[in-house]
């Protein structure tokens, strides 16, 4: 494991009595691609701005490379930011934009020229040096913004929804570009997004946030396959969240039918939430095969798979399957024990958030 580079300790921040971050604790390792993921207003951008030095936390401290930088202004921090709307300097050429940070640091002209050449090559925009920012497309401008940041050789690159303004195809291309850049540069990326697909594609670690609290920290696989609560399950991908009863260890009663599962330690006859991903629901026309019988109520062709809704025991199951079952078709439903994810029920929504943070 790499060493811890950034440590956020007990960070709280409020704007006009509105609590945006409540006692947030998070550490980030060297060379990690960490994504702060959550809906708008969850505090992810505020966290990034505190890291960049554009906001000061009300309480808590930011430790960077074993030094407290909580009060350090942005221009004295060893990290650079890529802004959502590119924020290129409109009165400077691309070259001047890229050279800005290096000129401030008083680097020699030959060093700066080398760096510009290197950076433009790195972002595949060779020969654009003399153009003005507004003559470039959104994707190109964003790549220049990245080039402008990385020539300063920061230890950490902060990216604030950098692909938010781009169209879908470009966004996907840029995701691969960013992964390549990160591997080539070998620096830490801290990435803010509300797009779960982006987070799953690029990250080493995902931090799911909601209402100023961290909901779950983990690898993309862990976040997707083992969500810790209904919020994470719902936010990351599609899912069936069903209120159920834990009969005993490794047996759960879903909608009146017992399903074997693999989770233990939830107690006996305890109400729980069960998460089942739509692709893990197994449908069959052989009505004897499954555990619950239902009727297909919706069918949409999605390209890779069919998306179906199946009404069974009073619950509308979302199902993704490569097999097609027409509307009105009677089917049976089964789920592999491994694919049933059990979660404790929150007593209330607020309590849920607080409890998870502790």
């Amino acid at each position: 494991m790499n060493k811890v580079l950034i440590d956020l300790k007990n960070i709280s921040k409020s704007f006009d009595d509105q609590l945006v971050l409540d006692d947030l604790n998070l550490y980030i390792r060297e060379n990690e691609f960490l994504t702060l993921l959550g809906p708008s207003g969850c505090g992810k951008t505020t966290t990034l701005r505190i890291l960049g030095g554009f906001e000061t936390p009300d309480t808590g401290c930011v430790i960077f490379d074993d030094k407290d930088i909580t009060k350090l202004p942005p221009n004295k921090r060893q990290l650079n930011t890529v802004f959502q709307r590119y924020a290129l300097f409109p009165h400077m050429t691309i070259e001047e934009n890229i050279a800005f940070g290096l000129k401030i640091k008083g680097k020699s002209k030959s060093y700066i020229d080398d760096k510009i050449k290197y950076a433009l090559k790195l972002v595949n925009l060779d020969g654009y040096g003399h153009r003005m920012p507004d003559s470039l497309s959104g994707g190109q401008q964003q790549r220049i913004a990245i080039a402008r940041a990385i020539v300063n050789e920061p230890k950490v690159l902060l990216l604030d929804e950098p692909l938010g303004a781009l169209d879908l195809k470009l966004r996907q291309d840029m995701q691969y570009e960013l992964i390549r850049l990160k591997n080539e540069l070998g620096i830490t990326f801290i990435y803010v997004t509300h797009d779960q697909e982006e987070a799953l594609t690029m990250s080493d670690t995902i931090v799911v946030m909601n209402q100023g609290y961290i909901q779950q920290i983990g690898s993309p696989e862990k976040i997707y396959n083992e969500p810790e609560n209904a919020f994470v399950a719902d936010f990351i991908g599609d899912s069936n969240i069903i209120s159920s009863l834990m009969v005993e260890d490794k047996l759960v009663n879903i909608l009146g039918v017992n399903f074997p599962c693999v989770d233990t330690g939830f107690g006996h006859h305890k109400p729980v939430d069960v998460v089942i991903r739509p692709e893990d629901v197994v449908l069959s026309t052989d009505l004897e095969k499954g555990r619950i019988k239902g009727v297909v109520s919706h069918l949409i062709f999605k390209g890779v798979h069919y998306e179906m809704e199946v009404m069974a025991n009073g619950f509308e199951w979302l199902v993704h399957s490569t097999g097609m079952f027409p509307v009105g078709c009677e089917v049976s439903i089964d789920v592999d024990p491994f694919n049933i994810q059990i979660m404790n029920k929150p007593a209330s929504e607020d309590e849920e958030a607080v409890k998870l943070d502790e």
Partner: protein
Amino acid sequence: MNNAQLKKKLLGTPYFLWSLIFILIPLGMVFYYGLTDRSGAFTLNNIISITTAEHAKALWLALLLSLIATVLCLLLAYPLAMILCNMGVNQHSFIVLIFILPMWMNFLLRTMAWQTLLEKTGVINSILNFLHLPALRIINTPYAIVLGMVYNFLPFMVLPIYNALSKIDRSIIHAAKDLGANNIQVFFKITLPLSVPGIISGITMVFIPALTTFVISKLLGGSKVLLIGNVIEEEFTQASNWHLGSGLSIVLMLFIIVNMVLSAIFDKDGEGSFL
């Protein structure tokens, strides 16, 4: 021509008539008078008369004083515009109101108020006298004229600069700081260059009216300080020499055109204009 086009043309008629009667015809008359003598024969003497000592001095003084007033306005307006930009919306609308409030009052009244304030036995001197301080003697001097110009035209400098500054995206400032620039570097490398259109527009809007003014110099300069505006005014009202007055006006117009061409070059997108 289809109906829609015809309608558009008809809608433009009042404006066209207005321009014709109050702008184009008077302008034509200025050129006619400026380029003829009393007998109606063509002559350049009216224009050449700018080179006489008296006229040249009035023009030089007008250029000098309006230049000083413009520089002073710029120095006062820029920090103010920056302060306004950094304020919350509630606070700044109040300050903008305070600034615009005097503009709702008649220009002549405001200048006459300064006359009352600055007079030898005026308000300011009465207060100074009461405090046993030496009296201020700036009425009827170029200083008083510059003061009047700055006072009257300052809002025209503040607003375009404020406009240009408020258009600068905050994230650009943040990006510059993020890349290591301190506040002074941010100002000279980012804020100032990006506000140039506003500065140019402000300079035009202060310099031209200051250059052509005759009311401020008449009220605050007495008859002792003559600007080119006063000379032209006197030719029309007292000497009844419309030919000479028009000739000098044409010369003054040249300076205005030069200024406007310069500002058009620097402010290509018209970003700084606020009217």
